[in-house]
């Protein structure tokens, strides 16, 4: 009964999505107030029914209703309740449902906070979001129904993939998807602007906070995914250049470019068509990511679903969405151009450079990700593109970018005099270069050119990000404080600096050793002694494990005991490595058990990872900067305007 309710609710949601996608757009075209008034109630109704459907699926999981095929394949009686809930989005069908739920939630948020927008405009935005929702609902109902029955029901389920039984991965997909889907809002704003043929600075001001929120969710989602891969995939890497990771990273790069381009459009009314193109690109890359992950087209550890029918549907949807948006762009964009000017040394120039470099990085990653597919299609054999390529492809545009950030953020709009800029930045530059040379050479004991450039760039941004907040803190009474927007920018850039330092140090000074250890034996790695004290058997709720006890000492002094496990899940029989990690702000010590090698010996992986926490911490600080910036007063004025433009459209919050 419950699954059928969920299925019907999803069909009703599709009907409402069709209303929401068709009527408001038609109403905006004909200037028909009654048709436009459908937008908000339809959006709220759609959200309610998608939520009912989602709850029904979660209920089936909690109830262990194995007559539902999806539940039978991805759950089990002994699975802890928390993972029964996260199993809802643990595989293809449910994660599509989550995607739709989040899209509906974003749409409701847009309809709630858009009462100050012109009516025709908000109708178009909500209408475009409705059409996107139609596409995903159709996809789910036609090719990936999560409520499909399995008769007769098996006595127990096949269990959730053990890799996914982890708190990090329970929250990673919802946040990542919130980011992906959030770019749909920026996309809808772009389409609405092109349909109305009117793109002014107010448009950019409305679009900015939405884009920032989407971007910060994506930032946190990617960071969580990286963190999960680090401790759960078992082997201590934090980024693998897996196509699925690239699929989330490309929209992030395009979204970062979009945020900066929007700043120019808002402040100066420039870069309009460029901003539109980036809004289309960011969402298109999100869709492409979904296509790559969900169609099973790629060879990847992440691709759980493999089905050509699904692939064709998403490809068609992708073609329709991107093609339609680009056609509209080609038709409308030329009429939107602006004629304001700026000097070579100005904020505009630096933001232009930012955009060019980010787009280059995105393109290079796209090439590396799609090349194996293209080569295979033209019958050039099977190839794969190795991490070194991605590393070069990213370092070349992004290192100059990181160095330029520091100058750009202290440059005035329109025109900047050269001397005051130099006077302001001379000291941080000298300190950054000194720190960039001293820290790697004397703290870690090695000099390398790329390493020094990387750490210098990191320290440079850390320092220059402090200038504006410090100035505000020490300002004279009565002078205005730093705006939230500028503070958010400083905080986010500070995060970039932390990230740059983390990446530079950990890639240069990471020590990794695979060794064979017998109980009582010890080995020295990265200045620490690791001793295998013993092994014992441990039973978990749905797994059995061998647990090693490893004592870590530094110069003979006790540091910590780690207990890495090798688990075997009872139903799926898959072995799983649970690493033991000793966390500290400036280094991680990482221990993972391999296999028994005979003669009581076990293979053990030992790693010393300096500054690795700065990578994720930097990403969280960037996202926090986004929150500060998005809460700027000038956006709130728009969002909270209690001026309903149509009397019949008061949507419940």
């Amino acid at each position, binding site marked *: 009964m419950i699954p059928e309710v969920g299925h019907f609710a999803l069909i009703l949601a599709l009907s409402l999505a069709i209303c929401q996608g068709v009527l408001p757009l038609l109403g905006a075209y004909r200037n028909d107030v009654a048709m436009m008034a459908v937008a908000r109630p339809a959006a709220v109704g759609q959200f309610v029914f998608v939520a009912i459907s989602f709850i029904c699926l979660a209920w089936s999981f909690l109830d262990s209703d194995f007559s539902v095929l999806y539940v039978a394949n991805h759950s089990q009686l002994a699975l802890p309740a928390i993972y029964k809930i996260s199993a809802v989005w643990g595989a293809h069908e449910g994660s599509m449902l989550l995607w739709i739920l989040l899209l509906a939630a974003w749409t409701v948020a847009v309809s709630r906070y858009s009462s100050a927008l012109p009516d025709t405009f908000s109708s178009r935005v909500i209408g475009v979001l409705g059409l996107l929702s139609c596409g995903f609902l159709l996809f789910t109902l036609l090719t990936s129904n999560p409520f499909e029955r399995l008769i007769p029901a098996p006595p127990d389920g096949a269990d959730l993939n053990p890799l996914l039984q982890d708190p990090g991965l329970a929250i990673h997909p919802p946040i990542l998807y919130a980011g992906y889907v959030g770019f749909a809002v920026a996309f809808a704003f772009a389409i609405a602007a092109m349909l109305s043929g009117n793109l002014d600075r107010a448009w950019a001001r409305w679009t900015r906070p939405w884009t920032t929120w989407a971007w910060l969710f994506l930032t946190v989602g990617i960071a969580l995914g990286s963190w999960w891969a680090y401790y759960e995939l078992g082997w201590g890497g934090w980024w693998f250049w897996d196509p699925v990771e690239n699929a989330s990273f490309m929209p992030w790069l395009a979204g970062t470019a979009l945020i900066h381009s929007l700043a120019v459009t808002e402040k100066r009314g420039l870069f309009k068509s460029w901003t539109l193109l980036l809004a289309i690109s960011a969402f298109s890359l999100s869709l492409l990511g979904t296509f790559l992950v969900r169609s099973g087209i790629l060879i990847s550890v992440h691709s759980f679903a493999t089905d050509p029918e699904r692939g064709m549907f998403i490809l068609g949807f992708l073609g329709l969405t991107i093609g339609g948006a680009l056609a509209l762009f080609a038709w409308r964009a030329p009429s939107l151009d602006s004629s304001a000017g700026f000097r070579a040394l100005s904020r505009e120039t630096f933001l232009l450079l930012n955009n060019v470099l980010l787009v280059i990085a995105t393109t290079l990653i796209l090439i590396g990700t799609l090349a194996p597919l293209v080569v295979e299609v033209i019958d050039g054999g099977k*190839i*794969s593109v190795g991490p*070194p*390529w991605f590393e070069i492809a990213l370092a070349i545009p992004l290192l100059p970018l990181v160095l330029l950030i520091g100058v750009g953020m202290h440059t005035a709009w329109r025109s900047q005099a050269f001397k005051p800029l130099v006077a302001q930045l001379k000291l941080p530059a000298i300190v950054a270069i000194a720190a960039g040379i001293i820290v790697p050479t004397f703290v870690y004991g090695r000099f390398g050119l790329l390493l020094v450039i990387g750490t210098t760039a990191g320290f440079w941004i850390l320092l220059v990000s402090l200038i504006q907040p410090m100035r505000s803190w020490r300002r004279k009474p009565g002078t205005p404080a730093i705006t939230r927007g500028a503070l958010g920018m400083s905080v986010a850039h500070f995060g970039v600096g932390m990230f740059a330092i983390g990446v530079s140090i950990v890639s240069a000074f990471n020590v990794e050793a695979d060794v064979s250890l017998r109980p009582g034996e010890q080995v020295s790695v990265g200045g620490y002694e690791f001793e295998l004290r013993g092994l014992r058997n441990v039973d978990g709720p749905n797994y059995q494990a061998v647990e090693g006890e490893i004592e870590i000492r530094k110069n003979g002094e006790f540091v910590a005991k780690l207990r890495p496990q090798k688990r075997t899940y009872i139903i799926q029989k898959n072995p*799983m490595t649970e690493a033991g990690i000793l966390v500290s702000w400036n280094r991680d010590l990482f221990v993972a058990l391999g296999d028994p090698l005979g*003669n009581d010996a076990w*293979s053990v992986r030992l790693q010393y990872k300096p500054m690795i926490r700065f990578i994720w911490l930097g990403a969280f600080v960037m996202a926090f900067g986004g929150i500060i910036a998005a809460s700027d007063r000038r956006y709130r004025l728009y969002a909270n305007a209690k001026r309903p433009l149509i009397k019949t459209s008061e949507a419940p919050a």
Partner: protein
Amino acid sequence: MKPRQQRMLAVGLAAVGVLLATGLTLRAFQENMMFFVEISDVVQGKVPDERNFRVGGVVVDGSVTREPGELEVEFTLTDLENELVVTYDGILPDLFREGQGIIAHGRMGDGGKFIADEVLAKHDENYMPPEVAESLAKHTAAKEATIVADKKEQ
């Protein structure tokens, strides 16, 4: 800056970026492209010179051997027609086991053994890497064809 100059600057920067990207792409790409080579081709010596490549196949039952207590391991991969001995000095992935389809990355060493620097197994035990599945299907078909041909000759 006037709009015209501004546009020229944008176009100029984009052109420089594209040129840089193209040059870099072509050079670095060739260096970092890794080919997947079928075992039967490896056995016949058809391997890329002086560079690493990937091989894939099924781990032959009972072929995984190591000196007790030593990390270094040796196993045999098959595409169901030919076999290749692989050595690897490191920790095998969780899902590595006999009868499983895996991919190894490395180069040919002396004595016709493949020296792997990375071994990949998929995270779903029923899942066969697509390259391996294709290679197996091809060579199973080839083997059956030769058996049929042999029978005809007899």
